[in-house]
């Protein structure tokens, strides 16, 4: 069956450029999450969506980061004016629900972003 997919798998961009990262969750999953993982580090929560709304944006590191979700499906994470410290793997996950029952999250393979 189809899992969570992310595109592109790798992205190399120049400092100052904007990038868009895409996530296609598992069909029927209402919750979608974005994480950042720097080399050798743990997962850093960025934002999550319940349906198309984002109740918690507190993890976004700066106003250069934004995300949207449409049709309770695909989500896009946009990073404007990229900086070298943005270089990381960006992971997307989806689940049936969120708080309380702690529904299992299914992760995509990630997008490796390199800012030169």
């Amino acid at each position, binding site marked *: 069956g189809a899992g*969570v997919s992310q595109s592109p798998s790798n992205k190399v961009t120049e400092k100052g450029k904007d990038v868009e990262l895409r996530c296609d969750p598992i069909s029927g999953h209402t919750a979608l999450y974005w994480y950042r993982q720097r080399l050798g580090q743990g*997962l850093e929560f960025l934002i*999550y969506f319940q349906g198309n709304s984002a109740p918690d944006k507190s993890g976004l590191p700066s106003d250069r980061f934004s995300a949207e979700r449409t049709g309770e499906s695909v989500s896009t994470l946009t990073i404007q004016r990229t900086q070298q410290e943005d270089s990381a793997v960006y992971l997307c996950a989806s689940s049936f629900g*969120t708080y309380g*029952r*702690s529904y299992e*999250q299914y992760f995509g*393979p990630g997008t490796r972003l390199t800012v030169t």
Partner: protein
Amino acid sequence: LAKTTQPISMDSYEGQEVNITCSHNNIATNDYITWYQQFPSQGPRFIIQGYKTKVTNEVASLFIPADRKSSTLSLPRVSLSDTAVYYCRVPNAGNMLTFGGGTRLMVKP
């Protein structure tokens, strides 16, 4: 906030049982505890989840004491392929589903 604390790294040998303990002192009443495994260049994947006492599946066991302020992931008879990072996760206030720093398990021959 329900923060988690777990050892940064552990070493073991093939065939041994490995126990990784995670502390989560501020866990909320309704929170479940979930453990994930992550191999290099892959996203984390679910291993096991529990609320209290003991849960066992084909991969691992999870032990949760009565106060639920900690949990222990038990991997029986590890092999080289169990070398990975293991994350303990609990929800916290504001629905921010935090992953801790993880425990890097190295299984040696």
